């Protein structure tokens, strides 16, 4: 359930924007951070908040890579497989992630911690191969470096769980 307080707060943001479509990404991201992903219910809520049809919200939601229209793990790993990273060996990085997490691209690890999503370009071509977890961009990846990052992320997740 999406609380009325959140809906009202987002409606105020939409009212302050020049056009309602301009606020659409903001609204979707807020609803996503509340639900973990942009559920069908969240799309319906976003449409109501934005004064758009559900289809028009869906058009935007499915265009943006960072809006998730399916349930995801606690962390989403975006691995670039576009041309620069490919020439720098992203295939090996992707293979390592698949093996380490035990998932296929698009899948979520059994412990529900990580979802693996290949993507086309993170704007970090000079530092390929590259990946992004949450808001953090990692470049010049090697298998060892990826192992360290995953370890750190797992620890961070565990501590945030125990602190809850």
């Amino acid at each position, binding site marked *: 359930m999406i609380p009325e307080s959140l809906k009202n707060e987002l409606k105020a943001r939409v009212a302050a924007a020049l056009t309602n479509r301009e606020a659409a990404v903001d609204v979707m991201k807020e609803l996503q951070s509340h639900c973990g992903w942009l559920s069908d219910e969240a*799309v319906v809520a976003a449409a109501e908040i934005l004064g*758009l*049809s*559900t*289809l*028009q919200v*869906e*058009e935007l939601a*499915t*265009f943006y890579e960072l809006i998730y229209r399916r349930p995801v793990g606690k962390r989403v790993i975006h691995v670039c497989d576009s041309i620069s990273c490919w020439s720098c060996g992203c295939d090996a990085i992707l293979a390592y992630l698949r093996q380490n997490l035990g998932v296929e691209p698009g899948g979520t690890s059994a412990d529900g911690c990580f979802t693996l999503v290949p993507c*086309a370009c993170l704007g970090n071509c000079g530092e390929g191969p590259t990946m992004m977890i949450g808001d953090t961009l990692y470049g010049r990846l090697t298998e060892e470096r990826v192992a360290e990052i995953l370890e750190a992320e797992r620890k961070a997740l565990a501590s945030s769980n125990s602190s809850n």
Partner: protein
Amino acid sequence: MPKLVIDTIELEVPAGTLILEAARSVGIMIPHFCYHPALGNAGACRVCAVKLIDGPVKGIQMSCMTPVQEGMVVSTTDADAVAMRRHVIEWLMINHPHDCPVCDEGGECLLQDYTIAAGHGTRRYQGKKRTHSNQYLGEHVQHEMNRCIQCYRCVRFYQDFAGGTDLGVMGRASTIYYGRFCEGSLESPFSGNLPDLCPTGVYTDKAARFRARYWDYDMAPSLCPHCSLGCATIPAARYRELLKIMARRNDAVNGWFLCDRGRFADHGVNSPERPRTPLLDGRETTWDEALAVLATRIGELFVSHGPGSLAVVGSPRLTLEGNYQAALLAEFLQAGALCYFVERDEAAAASAVVSLLTGDTAVSLAEVEQADCIALVECDLREQGPMLLLAVRQAWRKGAKIFLVGEGSPREQTDSVSLETLRVPTLADIPLADYSTPLVIATPSGSGTADIETAVTAGAKLVFPLSGPNTFAAALLTREHRATSLAEALASGTIKGLLAFEADLPEELLSGISLLAVADRFPSAAMIKSDVFLPTTAWVEMDGTFINHEGRAQRFRKVMNPGLPIKGLDPALHPPRVHRLDAPGGEPRPAWRIIADLAERLGAEQLVEPLSGRWEFLRDLDPEGEGERIL
């Protein structure tokens, strides 16, 4: 104006013209999918590539995205351009299924034509085709997403042009999907244009699915009979069955499009209930007997009550030919009444319209799009003329202000095309004189046209959506032949006989009638009560003329012969062991022909040409032209 050369042809075209359009103006057809004259360009399909050999820009360019410039030298036949187009086709075919033999679009598919034109016949790409699930989009439009080539025509029409909000494009790159948020009927009243617009078979007409190939259709330029706007159509028929109706281009009227009512509404042409045989006192008979008996009974009526006891009735759905012949028949017989409208109010409203509309005040649908202020006065265009809503939306997109006047103008009509409107209590509350091209769209009314006359003084043009496809002609004939409404004629009590041609007769008006002859293509209570019933052809089964709401006379051509559709005939009775030259159920005749035949039996001269005298100038009207304004 820039001068340029296309394939050695020198030409000069207005600045802003696209190379693709400039080429077409000199007869060079550059292949294209995403470009559409009504929707503009998108640069999405890449198949209109040409090579600029010399001038301000050089190299391969998309001709739909490149406005002409002075000194351009364009080649459509350059080897690089040809190779580019060939490769684009091969690339579009990577995911397109090879299902042409079972695809309903086969034979009328732009992608099929261009694939063959490009010479692509052997698949080189060995990967899998991307596939999609289809959606249920309602009773009328079939969805087959695998065929999509991502030209964006559907969504540009549906959302931008028609203001629909429930069909769009989702995803990106190879996951692009055109459809709805979830399955369900398309909500736009213009959804039926998707099959016309789609350059391949993503959207096809569901009712006509798997029924016939393009080259099998009986087709002819026709008109829509469902309201007074006179939109151009192409009905398609096969095996004596009207299969579907497509939009036909008329730049002065409907542009390229058609509303869903015009396309999908029940037209009754194939209906098993449709009367197809003349009836005499309720039993089937021949044309000869029916007309002979009718002539005799009219004579008997005249002997007992005099010719003043007969009323001849035409209607707003009867052709100009039929209505004019009805007037001539009434004159010839010195009938007591000639009627084109049943109710008094209806006749008064129609007569107000023909007096208010002049060459100066009447506007076409195309001109509606040019208005900068539109007042919708006591009207609901979803019912009265949906294509007007589409035209109003185009005006709104160009910046026009739209006003809803009166409680009879529901907001839902403008919501259906996503228009912003202002509501005002009366027409006088709109500062019409402040606008350069103000327009009033109003339901015709026989009383209180003062506010509309004031609006005309302030410079407003007028549109009156009327009840039927030929209401305007019926109103003109009412004025010219001093016709009255049927209700008024019957009120006098002297009318004892009715000859009604495609008129909707209310049962309660028929009580004092001793001779009732009805000619129609629909079954009705009046048909059951009639002494003589004569089946008429539908508009697709005859040539004819309608005069639309703005006084534009338009000709429509016969599409098909009347007859019982082969689909639905009882196979046990096949082949029919009846020796005949005409098709079973092929008896219906055009109403004007019935009137003329009856007149001949009553002593009039034989009729060859139904439009004469005042209307002779319309004989050679071009059915594929824009029609002729008679105001």
